[in-house]
Structures are given as C-alpha cells and as structure tokens.
C-alpha cells in the first residue's frame, strides 16, 4: 500500500493498494468492486476479515470526498492479461458507473489486484492511528507480507513470519434461533421448497425431520403447507416457535478464529516480548443464536514499554479496532481484571489482545468500532483472559525463582575471591595459594547445588575472573 499526498493539495491523498491474490474475473470487476449493497443470499458466514481490498467502502469514500472515480487493475491467476476499469458508483441506481475499460497482454508473471483511489485525508492527524492499524494488522496476519509506504516516504515493512494460513470461514445456513422476523418473511417469499417442513430443513442448520415437525406442531401449522402461502399470523407463530425451541447450538464452522498459535507468532514477531501466550475459547452463542469465539493473547516484557494500564489491541472478525476503545466490552473486562492476583504490578510492559469473531458482532453503535457488552461475550473474554493470565503468572513466578537462584549463586561467587584471599593470606607459606583455595571453594559450592542451580553456577563461574576488589 502506498499513500501519497497531492503536491497541490496536501489534504488529498492517492491511495494505492495491491495484493497478489487470485484476481477478479474481468466481467465481475466493476460489480465486485463497485456495488456497495449486495443482497443477502440467505447464507451466513463471518463476512468481515477475509481481507478483500475493502474496495466498496473506498469507492464510496472517494466519491463523497473528492468525487474521483476509482481505478482498478486485475490479472486473474490463470490469465495472461491485465484488465483495467475506471469506475464509480451511480448512487441513484446503486449500480457501478463505468468511465473506462481496457485490457492488455501481461508479460509479467503476476496475478492479483491493484486499486487506486483519491481521497481526502489529513495525514498528520491520522498518522498514528494508521500506523497502529498496520501494526495490529501485521500481528494477526503473520502469514502475510505487508509493505506500507506512507506520505512521508517512510517504509513500513512487516515480513511474512509463518507459511500456514488460518482456515477460512465456511458458509453455513443460518441458525433458526438467530433469525429476525423480517428475514424470515424474505426467506419464505424466495424459497423454492414445496412444503413448509422442507423449507425449515433446507434453509436452516440444526433442523431435521423431528425438530421441524415439533416446531410446526408448536406453531400450529400444517407441515405440508406451501411456505409461500403462510398467513401473517402463521409467520408470527412460526417465528415465535423457532425462537423458543431448543435447537442444538449453532455450528462454529462459519467462524474463523485466528488460532492461538498464530496470535502468539504475531505478537512475538511484532512486539518482541519476553513472554507470549494466547487462548482460543470454545464457541458459544450470544443473543439467542449467533455463534462467537473469543480469543485472548498476552504479551509481556521484552521490547514492550511499561505503561500504567494494559495496552489493549482489539479485533473483531480479525479487523483491528482503533477507535472508541473505552466503550468496548474488552476494555471493560481488561480494566476490571485483578492483575495483582496474577503477579502483574503496574506500570507493567503488558499488551492484551482480544479477538471476537462471530457471524454477528454485536456492535455498540453503527460505526462498528466498539463491541457491546453482551453478558456471554464478557464472560468468555474474562475466562480467556484468566487462562492467559494464569500462564503469565506461572511464567513470572518461574522467572522470579530463577532470578533468586541467580542472585544467590552470584552472591556466593562474588565473595569467593575475598574469602580465598583471606584463607591464603593467613595460611600462606604452607603452600596454600589463592588459586587453590578458590578452586576448593568453588568445588564445595558445586557439591551443594544441582539441576538448575548447577547450570546457573557453571554459567556464572565464567565471570569469576571479572570480580574486582577496589
């Protein structure tokens, strides 16, 4: 990604984003990039966080701030041609408005997509947020190579650390308990199922022959009725029956957690801490039927600067959340957490990462920057944090213990020259030399330690000659 400020107007930037993905087929380019509101296919999956280019939002933003169209270049993975489109959006029809099209033969062995947009932006003002975004992005995408050249010409490079990619989310049918009434009405209108029973079984997950019959009996609806012919009252009864019936928990396959291992790798590579751990919780539901998974990572010490409160990195469906931190449920959980019980005294070099992935993130407000305080999510965050913090405590305890051993051995060793000198001075002339007494002292010490203590002793003995008496 390259951001350059316009030499004539410093408040305008040209943003160029390029990936080396599979590219976009030429006939789909304008639609894929430019159509801001795509209708639901009644299938759900964790929709944010698959890392497309975020092109639709950019197109709208470019249009509304500078009025400039967006340019896109793409070469699909199996193609030898490069396709070009210059487009914007016709807001009245909600359709892409195409300004130019082109295609040419590509000599390079390259595939992927590049998009360029002109937007209004106050770089000095947003600089630190953007940099934080990239840093956070790099932490959860250790499998990606990220290069960002900012308007000051500074290069920010986060090289790839791991080769493994996380599992992408699967598309799954909605869970019957999570459906809204309006959605249900839409689905009933568009279904091709011959009977209402078939409709339930084919449209939703976790619904089989038996549960479909049970729900319909509860709703008082004939299982063989055509779903398109349900009365408003019947729809209302069906909706209530679906809501109250106890279906098995929703499938978590639609969720794409980052995974504890990747979180640890990412935190380790970017923050260079001395200790890192991450926890991925089991899936749960919030608000009746939306599955979610909470992940928490902790990085401690090393290159992390100590701060008065934990430094929080929030993610929702793998997207870094930058704004509105203090109203997020994660902030609340981290702030209320009793760190003292886990051996952390502030100021401490502590970073806490929280990731919530869900088919439906319960946003606090529409801007999608803070997650609302859902009891189930809060509980999972707390449990995950507890588990990670317990590991941190164990690490800190061991570290303290080792430091004590080091200090102990160091104490003994630092007195040895003085003691040896004393014994040799008093017994001097009897063929007792300082070196000899020193050797005897070290041997006597060696016999009294074992395991870790012995290992540390052997390390430190090497420094014995550096002890000076001034």
């Amino acid at each position, binding site marked *: 990604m390259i951001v350059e400020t316009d030499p004539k107007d410093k408040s305008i930037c040209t943003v160029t984003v390029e990936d080396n993905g599979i590219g976009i087929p030429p006939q789909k380019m304008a639609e894929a990039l430019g159509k801001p509101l795509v209708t639901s296919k009644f299938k759900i999956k964790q929709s944010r966080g698959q890392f497309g280019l975020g092109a639709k939002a950019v197109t709208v933003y470019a249009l509304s701030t500078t009025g400039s169209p967006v340019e896109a270049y793409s070469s699909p993975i199996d193609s030898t041609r490069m396709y070009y489109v210059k487009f914007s959006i016709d807001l009245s029809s909600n359709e892409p408005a195409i300004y130019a099209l082109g295609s040419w033969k590509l000599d390079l062995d390259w595939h992927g997509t590049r998009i360029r947009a002109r937007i209004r932006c106050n770089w000095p003002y947003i600089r630190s947020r953007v940099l934080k975004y990239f840093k956070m992005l790099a932490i959860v995408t250790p499998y990606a190579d990220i290069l960002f050249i900012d308007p000051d010409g500074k290069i920010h490079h986060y090289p790839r650390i791991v080769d493994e990619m996380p599992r992408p989310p699967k598309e799954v049918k909605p869970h019957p308990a999570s459906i809204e009434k309006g959605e249900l009405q839409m689905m009933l209108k568009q279904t091709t199922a011959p009977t209402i029973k078939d409709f339930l079984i084919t449209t939703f997950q976790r619904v089989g022959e038996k549960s479909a019959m049970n729900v319909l009996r509860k709703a008082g609806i004939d299982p063989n009725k055509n779903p398109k012919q349900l009365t408003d009252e019947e729809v209302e009864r069906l909706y209530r029956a679906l809501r109250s019936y106890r279906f098995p928990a929703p499938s978590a396959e639609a969720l794409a957690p980052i995974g504890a291992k990747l979180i640890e790798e990412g935190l380790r590579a970017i923050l260079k801490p001395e200790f890192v751990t991450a926890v991925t919780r089991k899936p749960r539901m919030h608000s009746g039927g939306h599955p979610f998974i909470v992940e928490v990572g902790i990085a401690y010490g090393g290159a992390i600067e100590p701060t008065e409160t934990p430094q929080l990195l929030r993610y929702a469906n793998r997207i870094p959340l930058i704004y509105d931190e203090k109203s997020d449920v994660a902030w609340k959980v981290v702030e209320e957490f009793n760190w003292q019980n886990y051996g952390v005294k502030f100021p401490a070099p502590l970073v806490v990462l929280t990731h919530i992935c869900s088919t439906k993130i319960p946003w606090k407000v529409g801007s999608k920057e803070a997650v609302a305080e859902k009891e189930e999510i809060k509980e999972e965050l707390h449990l995950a944090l507890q588990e990670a913090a317990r590991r941190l405590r164990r690490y800190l305890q061991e570290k303290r213990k080792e430091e004590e051993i*080091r200090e*102990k051995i*160091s*104490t*003994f*060793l*630092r*007195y040895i*020259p*003085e*003691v040896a*000198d*004393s*014994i040799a*001075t*008093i*017994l001097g002339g009897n063929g*007792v030399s300082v070196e000899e*007494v020193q050797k*005897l*002292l070290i*041997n*006597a*010490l060696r*016999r*009294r330690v074992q395991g870790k203590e012995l290992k*540390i002793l052997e*390390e*430190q003995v090497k*420094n014995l000659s*550096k*002890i*000076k*008496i*001034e």
Partner: protein
Amino acid sequence: MSKPPFVDKVDVEARRKAIQAFRERFKALLEQLQRGENPTLILPKRTLANTIYDEKRKLLLLGPEKLRRSLFNLHEAKKFMQTMLMAKIIYEALVNNEYPTIRDLYYRGKHTIVFVDDKGRRREENTWDEQKESDAVLRDIEVFTGMLREEMLILSKEKGKVVGNMRIRSGNDVIDLSKMGHGAWAIEPTPDLIEFIDVDADFVLVVEKDAVFQQLHRYGFWRRYRAILVTSAGQPDRATRRFVRRLNEELGLPVYVLTDADPYGWYIYSVFKIGSITLSYESERLATPKAKFLGVSMTDIFGDPETGKKPYLSEAERKRFIIKAKDADIKRAEELYNYKWFQTRKWRKEIEIFLQKKSKLEIEAVASKGLKFLADKYIPEKIETGDFID
C-alpha cells in the same frame, strides 16, 4: 648508622600467640574445604537470650547456644565474608607489627567488590558500609579465636584515667601514678601488658564523672585517704574495666564505685561488677564481681526508715538538687528491675524508692554541697560504716 628497630618484648610475645591462634583456626577451615564441605564457623551466640547470669560467680556470661555461620548459606554469606576479611586484616596487622584501632580496621576492610551479573551489568557491593558492621565481626573474631582484641594488639580509644600511690611498667617505661601533676595517666588500651611494680593504697575509688574525678584529685583525696582514684568518664571502656579488675584481683584492693543516682549510674556500676550484655564473652576477664556500689544511693538522699538511716541531704537541699526522672529513666529502671542481677534485697529497695519518688540526682550535686563534704565526710564515712550495696 640507623637505630635498631624499637622492640617491645611484651608485644612480640602477644603477636606470636595471636598469629598462632589464627593459623590453627584457619587450618581447620581449610580442612573443611578439602573435604568439600560448606565452610562453616561455629560461634557462641551474642544475644540477650544467650546471656546468662552466673549467680555463684556473680558474672554475666555467654550461654551455651552456638551459631553456625556458613559461606554457602544466603543469609550468612556476607557475614561470613566479612568475618574472613576482618581476620585477614588483623592477621596482617599482627605480622606487620602494627597497632590498628577499630576505626583503622573499619577503613582497611572497607572496599568495593565489583562484579558482572549474568545480564552483563556491572554491579558493586561494599564489604561493609558502617563501622557498626566491622565492630560486630570483630566481636565475632574474638569469640572465634578465643582472644580478646587487646591480645591481638588492637587499640580502641580509651578514656579511662588513674592516679594514686602506685608505680607500673607500661611498655618499656616505668610510670609513677603519684607524679602526674594536675593530669592523670590515661589507662593504656592493652592493660594486660601493664606490670604492677609497687602500690601503697587501701582501696580503689571508681568515679563515673570525669569532672568529679578531677575535683577529688586536686583536693588530694587519694593521698589523704590512701586510694587509687579511677574514672571511666561515663560508660566504662574495656581497658578501664580490665585495669580495675586487675587492681582488685591481683593487688587485693577493695573497689568502690561512685555514680549518679539514676538507672544509668546503676548500669555503669553493674558493667564494672558483672559485665555487659554485648561483651558478655569477656566478663570473665573484665568484670570485678567484688566491686561495691558506694553511691549515690536513694537512701543517701531520702534516708531509710527501716534501718533508721538519716539522709545526707536536708529537705532544702533535696529541693535544690533533685532532678525529676524522665519517662526514659522510669522505663530503664523497670528494665533493670527485671534483670536477675538487680534482684537483691538492697537493689530492689533502691529501684522501688526511685520508682516511687521519680527523682534522680547527679554526683555533682553532692560536690556542690561542698567538695569538703564529699571528700572528707560522705565517701570516708560510707566506706567506714559499710554503707554500700554489694
């Protein structure tokens, strides 16, 4: 022609013995090491709990409790190193014919151990910071070697003084203690090396206050009453105590102690008589169990209805001279009341009167009543009539 080096025969012998003692103790230490053992010193504990009052011999003695001090024990390592360091410095002074003071020992041993910790940081630690620390290990060396510092020719600042009809040899010189003019002979730091030549006196009077000592000296008290006059000038140091002990033990002179009438005066007397808590290991050599408390006693001030003793002070004089006891005095008196060696009938009476009257008195007050009164009436009369506490 260079002069032959000055040799003090007495010192030479002392040095030889001390060096021998050090070598023997350290040989044992080396043998521990050769067996691969943790080098360990076994020392008597110098604590109040391990201080025992021997009722029969009337001495404060070190109890049987022992302390093991090992190098490879985190809480003892530094003390062990300090003890070794102190031994080395004393040994070197002995070998080099030196007479270090305890302050010298502190400075000679005070240096910085510079080491690199395993994070590569340069760190420093002082062998000791305060003289309190080096003084403490010096006391440990005394019990470890079984020698007093005087025997190791370590000097401390001594403030005790003596005059009287007596001749002694100190070093290579003969000193006549009756020819000191207005001054007095400063008791040397190693009183064991003094040789008594001849003496013509009936008793020893130890005065706590230097000023009262000087008044009595100028008045000619010791000549008139055939006394050896000693002052400790406050808390008695070791040399003064050892000197007084030798006067009593070797010359058979009775010892009378004159202090202020307050708990601090009483404690000074008890240090002369039975020893101190911090130096209880030396009581056998320093204490004078037969020393008697001449005054100033509470019954001297207030009289004693029980025995019909009349007070030395009139009502008016009491009003003039008595000082009101402070809280600290009361507290100290209560402590002494619990010490075994103050639990005799006469001492209990002393302390009880003090606690009841809450009054104290300095010897100077008795001198104010008239030096003649102090020298010609108070002291001789009390000795004559046996009006003292044993």
